[in-house]
């Protein structure tokens, strides 16, 4: 029988730790054997994968198999979450595979200083995602009640002829739309700034469309924060207070703690680009 070619799937980089000897977690390809490859006091957390599963033909089939994709994405995440429980991690993206153990060691050796530095910076910090959505219609309803100018116009409309009332109504709608847009921007800025006060770092990502989120509201903020363990409670209490006290058709979502995916830039990219 032909021997299958083995690859080393890399999940993350961390400091060397006896913890890994006991590590029991299901990784890629349901592999239960997740282990460290060490270089000095840093290590890459890996498991063996069958390269055939990641070869051109099989990969195409596997990636279009939602079960395969989901279970492997979760396997990837599970391992990193387990490792990050008690230590800093540099999370890698999905699907980075080295063909030999020596290659993994080379990666650690060539980027040793950078890894050490990054692990130091990420110590006791985790990533939290904040997403805010706005139902514009609801916001407009709220504005309709509170805006003085609109109330005046509404008053006028009731006294006008049909034709004049039509134009005034249109004017009201225009004012509302404009105001709603401005309000959304102000809100997004305010939330963004407030959360940042309790974070070490932050990133803004593109807003997802309704087709992606499946919500009846538009995403107005898609932000990620790197939060120190000591400030997590404060950060989350800010989230709770926005969630409970801000109306105007706004919805708040917070997920985490995530590995700091958005706050590492992987040297692997550079290797690939060479």
């Amino acid at each position, binding site marked *: 029988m032909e021997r299958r070619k083995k690859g080393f799937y890399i999940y993350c980089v961390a400091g060397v730790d006896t913890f890994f000897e006991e590590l029991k977690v299901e990784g890629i390809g349901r592999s239960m054997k997740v282990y460290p490859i060490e270089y000095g006091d840093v290590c890459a957390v890996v498991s063996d994968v069958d390269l055939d599963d990641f070869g051109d033909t099989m990969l195409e089939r596997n990636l279009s*198999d939602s079960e395969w994709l*989901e279970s492997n994405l979760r396997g990837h995440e599970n391992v990193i979450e387990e490792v990050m429980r008690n230590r800093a991690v540099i999370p890698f*993206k999905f*699907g980075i595979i080295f063909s030999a153990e020596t290659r993994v060691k080379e990666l650690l050796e060539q980027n040793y200083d950078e890894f050490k530095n990054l692990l130091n910076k990420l110590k006791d910090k985790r990533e939290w995602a904040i997403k805010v959505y706005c139902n514009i219609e609801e916001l407009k309803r709220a504005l309709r009640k509170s805006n003085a100018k609109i109330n005046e116009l509404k008053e006028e409309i009731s006294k006008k002829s049909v034709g004049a009332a039509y134009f005034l109504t249109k004017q009201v709608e225009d004012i509302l739309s404009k105001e709603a847009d401005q309000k959304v921007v102000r809100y997004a800025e305010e939330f963004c700034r407030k959360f940042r006060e309790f974070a070490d770092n932050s990133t803004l990502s593109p807003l*997802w469309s309704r087709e992606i989120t499946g919500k009846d509201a538009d995403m107005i903020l898609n932000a990620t924060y790197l939060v120190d363990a000591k400030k997590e409670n404060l950060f989350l209490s800010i989230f709770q207070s926005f969630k409970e006290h801000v109306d105007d058709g706004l919805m708040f979502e917070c*997920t*985490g703690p995530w590995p700091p995916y958005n706050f590492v830039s992987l040297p692997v990219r550079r290797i*690939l680009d060479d």
Partner: protein
Amino acid sequence: MTSPAQSRDITLLELLDRILDRGVIIIGDVTISVADVDLIFLGLKLILTSVETAERMRQGGMEETVGLQ
């Protein structure tokens, strides 16, 4: 604030957004292959279908998922 790996739906989308980069990559002595980006989106389409957005995806087409980066 559940663990991301435990809850489905939006966090699965977030997971995709975070960890799928530019395809599956094999680094080795001879093999360096970057999977075609379309393949990733093909996978995304299917996985999104499982995230209860099936109807919307069918109406909206796949272009939107490019927004996931």
